[in-house]
C-alpha cells in the first residue's frame, strides 16, 4: 500500500515560479514515468516527493499520510540518482549497508538482505571494491542495490539510464521492468526520453512548463493525445500538423507512420514530391513537399526513384485540434471540412 498524491503543490525559487499548482495521483504499485523536456519541473516534482526539496505550497501524501514535514530519510523512499551518487570512499558493501545501519537494522538481517539483493543485481563478486574500480554498468547496479535493499515503499529514479551506452540502456530497461514486476513496489521514474517512458511505464505523466499536460497509459498517450504537444512529444518523426488551411484556425494532425504513398479510399489525397529519403532498415522516412508544406512519412514501401507521388491519409488516423491546440472530436462536420479543403477521397 503506497500511493502518492500531490495536492495544489507549488514550488518557486525566489520570484521564479517553477510549479504553479500541481495535482497528481500516483497509483499504488504502478510504474509511473514523469516525462517532459528539461526544465519542465519533472525532477523538481520527484525531489519534492523525496523531501530533498521543500514545498512552497500545497501538500504531499504518501499512503494518506501528509509528509510535508517528514525528513527525506524517514519517508521510506529509495532513490537512484542520474550520476548514481555512490559514496566514493565506501566499498560496494558499505554503500549498500549505509542506509540499513542508519535505520538500525540488526546485523544478521542486514547480511541477509545484502546477499539477496546482490544476487539479484549480480554484484556478489564486487562487494569489496570501491566505486572508482567499477564500470558504469556496475555502478548503476550498486545504485539499484542500495535503493532496493532498504525495501522502500516507493522507488524513485531520476534519469538513471542516461549515463549508460545505448546497448546497456536497452538491457537495463528490461531489467527494471522485471524488477518492478518482482518487487511490486510503486516506481516513480523521471526521464526526458519518450522511448524510455513508452517502453517502461504503465502510467505516463507528460509535463511541460511546470504543468501536467496529460496523464495516461502509454497506449492511450500514443493513440489518443489530448493536444498538439502530446501528439508531437510521442513518436518519431513528430506528428505532422497542417496549419492555416482549415476554418476557425483549426489544425489537422496525423502521424508519419499513418501517411500512405498512394491514394486512399476514406481519407484525403494530396499530390507530393519526395524531397529526401532516409533508410532506417525496416522502414524508410520520406520528407514530402506538398502544397501545404513539408510532410514526414514513415513507410515500409520503397518508392525506388519515384519523385511525384500521391500522398494519402485516412480519416480514421487524423487528429483535429482547435485554435488553442486542444484536441477536438473528429465528427462528420470535421470530416466534411477537411475533405473540402484538402480534396476528398479519390474516385
Amino acid at each position, binding site marked *: 500500500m503506497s500511493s502518492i498524491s500531490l495536492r495544489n503543490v507549488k514550488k518557486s525559487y525566489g520570484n521564479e515560479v517553477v510549479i504553479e499548482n500541481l495535482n497528481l495521483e500516483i497509483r499504488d504499485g504502478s510504474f509511473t514515468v514523469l516525462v517532459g523536456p528539461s526544465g519542465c519541473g519533472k525532477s523538481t516534482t520527484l525531489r519534492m516527493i523525496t523531501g530533498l526539496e521543500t514545498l*512552497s505550497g*500545497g501538500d504531499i501524501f504518501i499512503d494518506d499520510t501528509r509528509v510535508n514535514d517528514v525528513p527525506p530519510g524517514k519517508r521510506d523512499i529509495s532513490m537512484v540518482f542520474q550520476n548514481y551518487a555512490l559514496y566514493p570512499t565506501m566499498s560496494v558493501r558499505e554503500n549498500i549497508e549505509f542506509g540499513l545501519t542508519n535505520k538500525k537494522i540488526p546485523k544478521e538481517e542486514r547480511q541477509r538482505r545484502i546477499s539477496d539483493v546482490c544476487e539479484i543485481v549480480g554484484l556478489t563478486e564486487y562487494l569489496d571494491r570501491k566505486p572508482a574500480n567499477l564500470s558504469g554498468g556496475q555502478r548503476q547496479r550498486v545504485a539499484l542495490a542500495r535503493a532496493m535493499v532498504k525495501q522502500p515503499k516507493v522507488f524513485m529514479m531520476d534519469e538513471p539510464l542516461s549515463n549508460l551506452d545505448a546497448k546497456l540502456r536497452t538491457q537495463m530497461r528490461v531489467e527494471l521492468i522485471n524488477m518492478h514486476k518482482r518487487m511490486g513496489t510503486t516506481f516513480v521514474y523521471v526521464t526526458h526520453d519518450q522511448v524510455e517512458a513508452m517502453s517502461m511505464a504503465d502510467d505516463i505523466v507528460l509535463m511541460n512548463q511546470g504543468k501536467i499536460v496529460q496523464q495516461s497509459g502509454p497506449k492511450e498517450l500514443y493513440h489518443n493525445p489530448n493536444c498538439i504537444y502530446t501528439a508531437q512529444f510521442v513518436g518519431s518523426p513528430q506528428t505532422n500538423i497542417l496549419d492555416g488551411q482549415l476554418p476557425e484556425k483549426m489544425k489537422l494532425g496525423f502521424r508519419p507512420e499513418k501517411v500512405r504513398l498512394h491514394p486512399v479510399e476514406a481519407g484525403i489525397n494530396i499530390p507530393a514530391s519526395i524531397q529526401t529519403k532516409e533508410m532506417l532498415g525496416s522502414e524508410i522516412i520520406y520528407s514530402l513537399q506538398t502544397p501545404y508544406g513539408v510532410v514526414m512519412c514513415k513507410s515500409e514501401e520503397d518508392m525506388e526513384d519515384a519523385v511525384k507521388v500521391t500522398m494519402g491519409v485516412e480519416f480514421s488516423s487524423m487528429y483535429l485540434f482547435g485554435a488553442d491546440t486542444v484536441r477536438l472530436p473528429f465528427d462528420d462536420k470535421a470530416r466534411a471540412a477537411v475533405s473540402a479543403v484538402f480534396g476528398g477521397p479519390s474516385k
Partner: protein
Amino acid sequence: MRGTTALSKTERQERLKGYLLAAPAVVLLFIFTVYPLCYLIYRSLFGGNLITKDPKFVGLENYTSLLESKDFHQVLSNTLIYTAVTVVLTMVLAVVIAAWLNSKKNRRLNELVQTCIFTPHIISMVSVSTLFLWLMDSKNGLLNILLNALGFESFPFLASPDTALFSVALVTIWKGLGYYVLLIMAALQNIPTSVYEAAEMDDTPALKTFFKITLPMISPTILFTSVVATIASFKVFDSISVMTGGGPLNSTNTLVYYIYEYAFRYGKPGQACAAGVILLVFVCVITYVQFQVSKTRVHYQ
C-alpha cells in the same frame, strides 16, 4: 498556510545549523584578527609604555614622530630594498630554474634537483639563519674561504652596513627559491602540450616559444607568487632577529623588527602600533593591487 509555517521551520533549523558550525571559527577569527586590527589602530593614537594603566591620548603624534624619525626612514627604505631584491631575484631565478627543470633532458636528475631545492623551505628560519651565520662568519666562514681559494677578496657579508641587508636577502632567497620553483613548475605542467605542438608546427624558435607562449601562460602564477613573496618579505623578522639584530648601524632593521624593538625594548607601544598600522597599509595595498591585476587577467583560464 500550514505548509508555509512548517517549511520555514525546517529552513530555520538549517540556518541555525550553519551558524552553529561556523561559530567556533568565527569567535576565534574575531579574537585573533578583527579585534587586534581594531585595537592596533586604536592603540596607535595613545602614548604611554608597556605598563601604563591609562595611556594618554596623543592623536596622530606617534605617526608624526615616526615620519620625522631618520631611523624610521631607514627602516622603511631597508624594508623596500630588501623586498625588491628578494622578490625580483627569487622570481627571475624561479622562472629560469622551473623552465630548466621542466625540459626533457636528464629527467631523473630533475627529480633530485627538485627534492634538494625545496628542502630549505621546510626548515626553520632559525636553523637556516644560524647555519648561514656560520657560513658567512668573517674569520672561519666557509664562504670567504671559498672566495679566497678562487682568488677573490673576502666579502664582508653581515659585518658591513653596505652588504648586510643584501646578505640577509641572499639567505631568504636560498631558503625560499624551491617553493617558488615548485609553484611555477606546477603552472608549467598545466600548459597543454597541444599548444607546444602547435608552436612546433608553426616552426617557432625555442626562445620565442618561451617568451610568447610559456611566459604569458604562466603570468597569472608569476603574479600571484610575486604577491606572496612580497608580503613574506614585508614580514621578515626571524632572520634579522637571529643574524643581525637590525645592525650593523641599523642597516638591516626592517619594519617588523622595528615594531618588535619599539614595543619590547624601548617600551613605546604607541609608536610600535603606529608602525604596525603602516605595515597593515602596505599589505592592504599589495593585496588590492593583486586583486585588481588578477581581475583583468583571468582570461587565461
